[in-house]
């Protein structure tokens, strides 16, 4: 497909500006002006609409495809939340308005949304307080680790150097802890797929600042010894960090706060159904127990005794500003709308059906693919294509086969602990019919891997493009059209 720049025709316009109604045509001194206009395209509105409509048609999406991408919780995004986000009283609101003197009175509705969303999340996760500011999961992680560091610093504890992270963790966990200045200790999983308790004990010293954990973890397993792990970490005054990527599995069944976690980040774009947007915007609010509350970023939304909502900056122990404003407000609003429509029962049903769907797939696919851990799973089930790989068909090849069948592939090669990993997260919003159809396609792939493994290298064959040459992309680094034009 042509790039928009290749459709450019001098003189075309895609947008009508108002005619100037002021009797001024001001010229800045040429020393402040650019030498030539930016080479943006010159196209009509229809050119733009047709171009981007056609581009959109080259995407798989939850709206059009089953999208069982493990650990990403690609559930259906209810349409009414878009309607809420489009209300002018929210979308036209300037973020600096509440920073005018007494300015909170102009944004009471927006502050109430943020405040109420915090209250819901506190009750759902068993936390004392939240900051809604972090703008994605990884941003929440970094915020959480900064809170951990502030806690140790406030106690004058300069020994804390290490953060313990299981080998099954998302890559963002070690990256976030490292960005905040900590060294990483990786602890392996045992045969049941959970953190090896003896190995944890072996690395536990008073230099351990805390532990980051996803629970259930990326093996799709809820660690029944989680309370023991929390006890161990707390015994060296470490902080228990809960990566909320997989919260969907335990809504109403367990709360991180009750399990011994001190700090939590959530991905509103996973558990709370806000759209993933092709890779963001997300939101990664962070909750804490009373132990860490004093360190939360400013500003914080408070409800005064007279019922008025306000921003409070007066927290001397706060880690300060971690983002420009009050969070990805449009995302927070959608998540709040989703919680309101589901309510207490709806949230519990969400976990129940997410786990039911995953276990159903685990059992239906077991005859065809090696299971990583032969036990009941939570919201996602983990397979290995090791058997298929013996005949030359790898996890990536099976992924490409699925694309030809209009199914978005599961997460492959993650977690790193399982060879040829295929990680399937169906979510609660998919029907049994969809799951059955997926099983048939996966079974077909397994059969074809036995009879005609060589065919797989040609998949996908039915998409606008086949497999890209990634090496060429990395070598040539063509990342800007104008580099060569």
């Amino acid at each position, binding site marked *: 497909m042509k*790039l*928009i720049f290749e459709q450019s025709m001098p003189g*075309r*316009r895609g947008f009508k*500006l108002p005619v*100037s*109604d002021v009797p001024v045509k001001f010229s800045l*001194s040429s020393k402040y002006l*650019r030498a030539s*206009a*930016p080479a*943006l395209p010159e196209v009509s509105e229809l050119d*733009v609409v047709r171009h981007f409509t056609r581009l959109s048609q*080259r995407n798989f999406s939850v709206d059009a495809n089953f999208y069982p991408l493990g650990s990403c919780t690609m559930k259906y*995004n209810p349409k009414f939340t878009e309607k809420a986000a489009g*209300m002018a009283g*929210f979308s*036209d609101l*300037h*973020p*600096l308005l509440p920073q*005018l*003197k007494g300015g909170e009175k*102009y944004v009471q*509705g927006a502050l109430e949304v943020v405040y109420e969303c915090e209250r819901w999340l506190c*009750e759902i996760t*068993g936390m004392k307080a939240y900051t809604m500011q972090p703008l*994605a999961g*990884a941003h929440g992680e970094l915020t959480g680790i900064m809170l951990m560091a502030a806690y140790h*610093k406030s106690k004058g504890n300069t020994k804390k150097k290490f953060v313990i992270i299981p080998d099954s963790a998302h890559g963002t966990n070690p990256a976030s802890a*490292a*960005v905040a200045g900590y060294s*990483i200790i990786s602890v392996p999983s045992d045969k049941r797929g959970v953190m090896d308790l003896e190995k944890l004990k072996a690395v536990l010293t008073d230099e351990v600042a805390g532990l980051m954990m996803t629970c259930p973890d990326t093996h799709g397993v809820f660690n029944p010894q*989680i309370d023991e792990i929390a006890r161990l970490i707390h015994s060296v005054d470490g902080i228990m960090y809960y990566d909320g990527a997989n919260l969907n599995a335990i809504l109403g069944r*367990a709360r991180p706060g009750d399990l011994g976690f001190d700090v939590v980040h959530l991905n509103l774009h996973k558990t709370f159904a806000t*759209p993933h*947007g092709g890779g*963001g915007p997300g939101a990664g609010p962070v909750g804490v127990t009373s132990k860490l509350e004093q360190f939360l970023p400013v500003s914080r939304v408070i409800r005064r005794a007279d019922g008025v909502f306000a921003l409070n900056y007066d927290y001397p122990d706060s880690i300060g500003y971690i*983002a420009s*404003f009050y969070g990805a*407000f449009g995302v927070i*609003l959608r998540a709040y709308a989703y919680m309101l*429509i589901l*309510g207490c029962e*709806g949230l519990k049903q969400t976990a*129940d*059906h997410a*786990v*039911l769907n995953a*276990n159903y797939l685990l059992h239906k696919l077991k005859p065809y693919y090696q299971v990583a851990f032969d036990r009941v799973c939570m919201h996602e089930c983990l397979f290995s294509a090791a058997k298929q790989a013996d005949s030359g068909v790898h996890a990536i090849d099976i992924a490409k086969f699925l694309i030809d069948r209009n199914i978005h592939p599961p*997460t492959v090669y*993650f977690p790193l602990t399982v060879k040829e990993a295929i990680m399937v997260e169906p979510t609660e919003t998919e029907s*049994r019919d969809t799951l059955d159809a997926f099983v048939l396609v996966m079974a077909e792939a397994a059969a074809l891997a036995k009879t005609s493994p060589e065919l797989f290298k040609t998949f996908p064959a039915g*998409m606008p493009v*086949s497999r*890209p040459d*990634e090496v060429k992309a990395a070598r040539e*680094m063509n*990342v800007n059209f104008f*580099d060569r034009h």
Partner: protein
Amino acid sequence: MNPYIANTPQDVRLMLSAIGSQSIDELFVDIQPRHAPRSFDLPAGLSEYEVIRKLNTLSLKNMVGPIPFIGGGYYDHYVPAACQALISRGEFYTAYTPYQPECAQGTLQALFEFQSSICTLTGMDVSNASLYEGGTALYEAMMMAIRITGRYKVIIDSGVSPIYRKILKSYTHSLNIQFIETGVIHGQADRAAILALVDDKTAAVILQNPNFFGAVDDHSDISEKVHACGALVISSVYPISLGLLKTPAEMGVDIVIAEGQSLGLALNFGGPYLGILAARKKYIRQMPGRIVGETVDAQGRRCFVNTLQAREQHIRREKATSNVCTNVALCATQAAIFMALVGKEGLKDLAQLNLDKAEFLKEQLSAIKGVEVKCSSPTFNEFTVCLSKNADSVIEVMMKKGFAAGFPLGRYYKGMDNYLLIAVTEKRTKEELLAYSKAIQEVVAL
């Protein structure tokens, strides 16, 4: 049952029987009774209409009526309808990160076009596929400069957004980075102070154009001297102004960041927004975040992929250039659509219109006793005035007259309690500008 779950009681029976379980509860066997929630006291669910009604009531508690003259880095520009219509396509907004390029060419090509548009706008060689927002993008740019130079001293001009500077301080608090702020002279960067501080320990000098006071500058002379010390120049820019203003590349800047909200995004009470980060090509391997690259498929057809992933957390884990994973792909797509719609000539005209309207208001205000327009530097669409009274009180009364009059600089700058920062976009009509002048004249005369 809620409308987002398809399983019927019959489905549940069939599925449990396939699994070999008696109940859904059995599947939660690892969550033992001692793990049960101590509380899960939440309201019952509402209907869709009830939620919409509740949220609509809340939205009406916000004040969006007053005519806005507040900027501060976030501007009330018109968003073309086609922009919202296109990103509202489910194929864009319900997709995820393009891990499988064959079924994500839409997002990937849109991001490639975004990167290219940002490059031509800023004059830089390479752009990433977006970061969260302007302030956190500046933090990433600073860390990038530290990695490139291996130095730990950073000098920042106070004309850079005070919000951004607060963010940098929180992130560097526990790291071993020397962070020095320099003052502002006549509304512009204090060159003498900056150059006196730059040395062979300096990683970067951070500037902003136009700066927080609205002043337009040419930082070429600063860049030249900073480069002589082996340090980098980072500049924060306002994308719409680049329809006219000298590009950061032309000023010798090494890394550019911007808040991209003005490129077709609603104000949204602070987010989601769009972090832009672009740089010289030689620094590409130290860039954070996703980068989309062009390549060919097995049949030689052009296609796009996430490239240079060896920098990223999912490959490098604790050795990654940044912890960023999800960014704001949809906002970047929105900006790409906006830039395509406005186009080459349109952006220039849009910038000129902003400039002219602001200059017209400046003219009007200059004639008012008690309002001193600060004019030591040229400005783009935002400028500073010194009032004869406290800016907070003027804003308060102006609000009652139907104007969000501007931003009080005293909020972030000591000794500037009478200073007001006023932004004028293409949306303001001559009538509104005249009415604003009349209103502020009355208020300062009170």
